[in-house]
């Protein structure tokens, strides 16, 4: 299997030499709560780390796509799980203008790909090898895509990575953009309930990966040449004939944070969370019905070694 275990090369952190000032501890640091559970977990872990350092933290619900104006205005202070595959153009604008700064990678190993619920392997027996899709395409055809197969792609504003793969690999599939994440999940759910065929662009970590037993199709491992050089890969005439470009998950914050809360800035910059830690917490919340605060507090108590050093380093 060619699972893209991407070792995120962490750049050497700017030296944490000597104690850092806490700054304005009486004023709450406002962390963005976006629309998905994984992000809630990530944010609450960071929030509890800040509280352990002696800060006040406020969690503010914020639309993922529209929060950067608030960050520039200093009304939101940090967002801790931003996916490079789906980031508003506004982010780049605000970073260029100097109101928002990046706070480094989160260390969450993301994978995106062409995926299917496990039962689809019975309908198209060659899976997970991508070559199998060529012969099975008819199985995936629907009223909108006939005679091609149907691939449910990301919502249009996230880009068209699925459609790019299909063109690149010259597969007889037509990509249909979903309108929202809810639409993607509804497709997965309906397909699982009905045992009907489904090919979908999806990603992990996501709670639905295990809930609907979602598998990735094996695509040729991508390297730079795949995206620039048509000659590379199985299709000599096209680029993108390989797996997805690895996406990066990073943190960002209000640019005034380093001055107002120097230690908090350092904690959030050095903060890391792995899939192995995040995924079980997501399950405890979405599947077992726990509350975010409690699940995260339990994890914090059981895994002090994973986060305490980051807090201590900033304080001493």
């Amino acid at each position, binding site marked *: 299997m060619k699972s893209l275990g991407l070792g995120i090369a962490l750049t050497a952190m700017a030296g944490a030499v000597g104690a850092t000032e806490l700054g304005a501890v009486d004023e709450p640091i406002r962390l963005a709560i976006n629309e998905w559970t994984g992000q809630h977990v990530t944010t609450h872990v960071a929030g509890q780390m800040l509280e352990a350092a002696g800060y006040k933290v406020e969690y503010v619900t914020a639309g993922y796509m529209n929060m950067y104006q*608030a960050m520039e205005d200093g009304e939101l202070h940090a967002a801790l799980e931003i996916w490079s595959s789906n980031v508003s153009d506004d982010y780049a604008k605000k970073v260029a203008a100097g109101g928002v700064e990046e706070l480094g990678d989160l260390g969450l190993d993301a994978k995106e790909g062409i995926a299917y619920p496990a039962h689809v392997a019975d309908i198209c027996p060659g899976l997970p090898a991508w070559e199998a899709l060529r012969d099975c395409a008819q199985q995936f055809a629907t*009223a909108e895509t006939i005679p091609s197969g149907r691939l449910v792609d990301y919502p249009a504003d996230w880009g068209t990575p699925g459609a790019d793969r299909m063109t690149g690999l010259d597969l007889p599939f037509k990509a249909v953009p979903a309108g*929202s994440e809810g639409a993607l999940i509804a497709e997965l759910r309906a397909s699982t309930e009905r045992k009907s065929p489904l090919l979908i662009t999806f990603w992990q970590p996501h709670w639905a990966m295990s809930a609907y037993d979602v598998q990735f199709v094996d695509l040729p491992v991508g390297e730079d040449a795949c995206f620039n050089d048509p000659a590379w890969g199985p299709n000599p005439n096209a680029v993108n004939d390989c797996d997805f470009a690895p996406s990066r998950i990073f943190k960002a914050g209000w640019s005034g944070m380093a001055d107002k809360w120097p230690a908090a800035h350092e904690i959030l910059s050095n903060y890391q969370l792995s899939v192995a830690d995040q995924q079980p917490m997501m399950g405890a919340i979405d599947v077992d019905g726990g509350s975010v605060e409690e699940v995260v507090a339990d994890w914090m108590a059981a895994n002090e070694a994973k986060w305490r050093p980051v807090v201590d380093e900033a304080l001493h």
Partner: protein
Amino acid sequence: MSIAEPAPVTAPWVGRLTPGTRAALITLIAGAVTLLLAPYLPWITIWPDAWTLPATQWVDTGLGLVLNLIKPAARWFSWLMEFPMTWANFALVSTPWPLVIGVVTALGWYLGGASMAALGFLGLIFVLASGYWVESMNTLALVAVSVPLAVLTGGAIGILANEVPRVKSAVQAVLDIMQTVPTFAYLTPLLLLFGFGPVVGLIASAIYAAPPMARNVILGLERVEPEIKEAAMMSGGNRLQQLFLVEIPTARLQIMVGVNQCLMAALSMVIIAAVIGGFNDIGWEVLLTMRKAQFGQALLAGLVIVVFAVVIDRMSATLATDRRRFDARVTYGILGATVIVTALSLGFLPDPATLTLLDPVADSVDSSLGDFTAANGAALNTIKNGAMFYGLLPLRIGLDEAVLPFTWGFSWTPAMSAGLFAAAALIGAVMALRGNVVGGLVVLIGAGILETGVAQMPWPFVLIAVAALGWVASGWRLAVISVLLLSTILISGLWERALLSLYLSGAAVFACAVVGGAIGLLCAVSPLAWKIMRPISDMLQTIPLFVFLIPVLMFFQIGEFSAFLAICAYAIVPMIRYTRHGLVTTPDELIEAATSSGATEWQIMRDVRAPYAAPTILLGLNQTILYAFAMLVIAALIGTTGLGQSIYLALGQADVGLGVSSGAAMAILALVADRLVQGFAEERRKALGL
């Protein structure tokens, strides 16, 4: 072709044509010409990029400058609005819930007696049991501030239009724009102006809720009897005194209708406010559950909003009628009992967030949705394929492209096209000979549209057809205005997407008109049917539409058919309501006259009630059109292409220019359609002497 030189042979013939026939004839000729020329002149079908002005970029730059200019004032305003917002929030959230429930019950008694008190009490108990108490109170706080804001703004606009008649038509246009430009289109500029947080939602909902208030104030003040005005003038009051002491109190009931509509509109915007966030409200819960495709939970959260809407609607509606007084002692009794209960139970009260009494219900709704999908997969697929192959696809891309071996079982040939036109010509000729020339021509035009598909109609044909319609509906002015407005869409390069939107909402409006009209007719005949349909209509209009996207998607997957159904679910309601209303309000004299002349029940319906109800039904159609356009943006969450999708793209990318231009294009389509239908309604009303 000059009119000044009457050709002796053709003049009497042309003179005999009615305006409708002439317009239909011109449209038919335009259609035929463009259809014949299209293969040789590609620019007839597709507006060339080279002719497109970078209007979206201009809008972006222009708006950017203006927004930065007024930003300080806007920020000051949003700082100011934070105070009432915080107070309302604090008051509602920190008040113990028995006290809130008791006060609402007492208010219910005061306004409408026992039934209203029961409604308020049970409604809030439902909210409490759902476990969304705190979120609901946050939502109420938003409504509690945005409604007074909208009432004041709307009232001021209405009074302005009344005092300065010169600006009245401009004010009407502004109100139309406020109601037709989708809120999502201007969320980005609002964020830029007012900063992050609930204040943006507050302002968005006030913008949407102010127009009904203003319209009712205008209407109410117009209807004040001249005698009353004269009396006020003679008693020597100045203009302000006349207005505030005499005219406004006289128009009280109509203004209260405005307040009621304003409340409902503000509540329907709650979900939009949640898209920005900054506020842990009930709309945010709907969005979270929608994202996980949890239908049961989303429905529960949505029903909380419906409960608020129903309680607020029924209670505020009593303000718009001259109501009788209810015993004040009972009001005080309920209040007193509430205070005692609250004081006694303070400290023992369960945290409302831990109440999850309705979760099992939500879960079972959710799992039965799954079971239903699993059990009926094949049947659902058949429905969808049938609708796509024989309805939506031909309408969008035309029979010549939609009829293929794997859809209809055979290929479309030029001979079939010829056959289609010949059949249409035959039907048209028969209709023309039987006296219905316009109908015959329309059949021919329809055949042409079916052959090419709505999304591929040549733009010169669309412009000419709209001009002809506008001319027949109300005259040259409307024709010119419609063409000018549509041309702006053409020039800004949004034409193709606009046609896609037009096709989808057109198909939905047609289906709603047929099905909704039939249901409306049924409800007019059978009181039982209306009893069943009324609460369903109420729910469809107030529940956040996001909730319905989940089952529709589960049944029919991402695609146009799902979007079509979602639009219909919302837009069908006015058609039902207005059709029924029009049919049941026929004056008794007319019916008596018909009965005494021996007409059967069915003849009365066809020959008396239906013609009399025509203007009202046309108004319902008008509302259905506006609703269908409003729903296009939400349907984009399913995955449609068209203006709705552009608005979402723009929202995600914070692209002010694209968002505002697409929003404007959508408003233009809605406005043109609105004016055309209103023109016809006006004509019918004159014909009936109303």
